[in-house]
């Protein structure tokens, strides 16, 4: 068990190392350079040359990668090319915002999805099942910015209950913060709900047709304990995997929602950084996102092993 976990963690770091190289060289291939992007169409050749020289854009890419990786391993992500501020200082508050929004959405979405999935599976084909399926199909078929706009139209513009801007800042109380991010949270919940509900329902139903479930049924167990004690643990692995994927999506895939609600998250930061060719910032954002994905998948693997002893021997 320990060996398995160690191997998984090792694989995680290897994945991150590969991603770091991909990130570095892919960003290096972006057309145009930071000097031109910074100064815009009004740049003079002299101003461009001054900036290029100060950024050492002339050095070979391989050398710059080695320097960069060595610094990153020491916790130094460098300074933003565009602002000269420390990348860590720029990224930290934005990433915290992203995690806060994703966390809140996850706290609502995961239990809701599991509950709805289990309930739908228990009464497969029933009225509740059909209602849940319809809701899932609706939310998964509509792009997330559209869900956002619909919620804004209803709750901000028509009813005036909730703000359409989710700008957070230091002086806000917890209640104000929650109020500001209610609409983006609901949007995100609707975006990730369907996938998890459908997977929970499908995984439980597939286990329900196994012989040992039939045995348990014949033994006289109630339907509730059948699903919760026998079916759910055996269906856990795929459900955990899907939950992890969706949690990852909540962190890295929400830039559209950030734009719609003007939420100061890490996605918008990365988009701005790409637009300005601010490579250290792009690379740091990319690594943070990659680490989130790799970390969540790692946790999912380990949790799956814990709930299902058969996976430990794999």
């Amino acid at each position: 068990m320990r060996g398995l976990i160690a191997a998984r963690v090792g694989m995680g770091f290897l994945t991150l190392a590969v991603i770091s190289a991909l990130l570095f060289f892919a960003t290096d291939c972006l057309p145009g350079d930071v000097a031109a992007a910074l100064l815009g169409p009004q740049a003079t050749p002299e101003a461009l040359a001054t900036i290029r020289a100060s950024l050492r854009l002339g050095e070979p890419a391989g050398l710059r990668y080695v320097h960069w990786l060595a610094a990153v391993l020491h916790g130094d992500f460098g300074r933003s090319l565009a602002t000269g501020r420390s990348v860590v200082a720029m990224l930290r508050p934005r990433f915290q915002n992203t995690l806060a929004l994703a966390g809140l959405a996850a706290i609502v979405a995961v239990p809701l999805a599991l509950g709805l999935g289990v309930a739908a599976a228990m009464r497969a084909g029933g009225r509740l099942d059909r209602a849940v399926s319809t809701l899932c199909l609706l939310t998964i078929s509509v792009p997330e910015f559209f869900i956002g706009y619909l919620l804004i139209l209803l709750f901000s513009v028509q009813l005036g209950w909730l703000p359409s801007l989710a700008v957070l800042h230091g002086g806000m109380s917890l209640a104000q913060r929650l109020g500001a991010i209610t609409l983006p949270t609901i949007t995100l919940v609707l975006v990730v709900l369907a996938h998890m509900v459908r997977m929970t329902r499908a995984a439980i139903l597939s286990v329900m047709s196994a012989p040992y479930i039939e045995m348990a049924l014949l033994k006289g167990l109630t339907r509730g304990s059948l699903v919760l004690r026998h079916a759910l643990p055996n269906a856990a692995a795929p459900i955990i995997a899907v939950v992890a994927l969706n949690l990852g999506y909540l962190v890295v895939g929400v830039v559209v929602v950030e734009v719609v609600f003007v939420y100061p998250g890490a996605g918008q930061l990365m988009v701005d950084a790409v637009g300005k060719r601010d490579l250290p910032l792009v690379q740091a954002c990319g690594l943070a996102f990659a680490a989130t994905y790799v970390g969540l998948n790692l946790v999912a693997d380990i949790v799956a092993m814990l709930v299902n002893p058969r996976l430990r021997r794999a």
Partner: protein
Amino acid sequence: MSPPLARREFLRAAALCGAAGAVGGMASLSGCAVPDGGGDTTGMLRIGMAGGSTSDSLDPRTYVDWMPINIGYQLMNGLVEIDAEGRAVPELLESWEPEGDARVWTFKLRQGIVFHNGKSLTPEDVIYSINLHRGRTPSAAQAVVENIVELRKLDATRIQITLAGADAELPATLSDYRLLVVPDGFEDWAHPIGTGGYTLEVFEPGVRCITRKVGGYWKPNAAHVEAIQVLSIGDAIARTNALISGQVDVINRIDGRTADLMRRNPRFQVIRSQTGQYAVFAMNCEAEPYANADIRLALKYAIDRERLLKTVLNGYGTVGNDQPIPPNNPYFAKDLAAHTYDPDKARHHLRKAGRERLDVALDVSDAAFFGALDAAILYQGAAAEAGITLHVRRRPADGYWSAVWMQAPFCGSYSDGRTTVDGALAKAYKSTSASNETRWRRPEFDRLANLARGELDPARRRELYGVCQHMICDDGGALIPLFMDHIEAGSDKVRGWQPSAIYDLMGQRIGERVWLA
């Protein structure tokens, strides 16, 4: 120095209103905002604007987009201000006088001005602030001040500027939004010290900024509101939603369709400014087939400008005539024949160039100007009637200015309005300019444009600039289909708000000029 002509006819009503208020000595007139009536208000003015980015800094050398510029004008003052009529009026430089041929200028500093840190304004501060943009500097304003060869303190209140080439409109040139004044030797750009009406409280780049009134601001009838919050809202729909749901008072950059909808609701006001901002399809005059002047004319006659104005801009603009000076500019050459849509004339010029048909590619992206892609598609349809096959190539907005612009031989671009005619000509049409996007190089044009710049007699200058406009219009590689208005909207509670002569949001000085009802 500037001609006392009213540049903007639609501004006259507002100006008259202002005059009536002043004459009557009244605090305010109903339905007409009078600057004198600008009572100080305790509220916070909330602006939601496009043009902010995480990479923004308050260092004036880095200003390329509107949010930092707007904040810069709250904190600091410029050298010269542009009034609602587009004229250069004193700001920190109180008065000026050219010597002889407009190559040497003497400027007098406004007295009794104090920085937020208590230091008094001296000639050294002004010289340091201008020098930030001269020589080896990352400043994008380098091109604006490169004509300056010497900057000298005459005495405790005066500085002297010596130019390489005469410039009769140097004061207007010095109104550039990057020429903001800080104390001599100042470098702490995270906390700018200026002489503006407000001081910085919070600045989160690409998110928001809050400034608070200093009190005792030297400008009369300015800095009315207690605090200003600027939120960066990049998405146009999010901006509109924020205004409708009452979370901001003012938004910038809305499109014509949204403006028409907003105008129906009495809770909102829509402000439209004709600032000379224009769209351009730039042809590289050194590349085939655009090197042939008849090909260029054929392409100019093959675009339906009226239709573009109606469809792309919903009428919020003016038809362009392939030269950069807008019709409301006092130097506009009225005798220029309009390049109206005429497939027959286009064919005629094609034949003169020895061709029956023409097959060219046009590279565009909405990064070039608002609605560039739609405009290109409409152009494609109109050009087909003239035997011109236009392949519209959609390019990504990201990296457009480095990968497409100045690279593709025929591509979309835009220009902001300029405070001086020379500014408009020097940027994209003189052969010495690095951003001469059409590579149209005519020594005779350069000579005339420089002659006009140094000409102190307005009548003679108008004549020279007229010739320059004819040259660009008839021969140049810039197809300028439209001048595009800036449209902004806000709550009806915002008072004292007027159209801009330059840029938008009252030349980005809205913070110190409006008040809340």
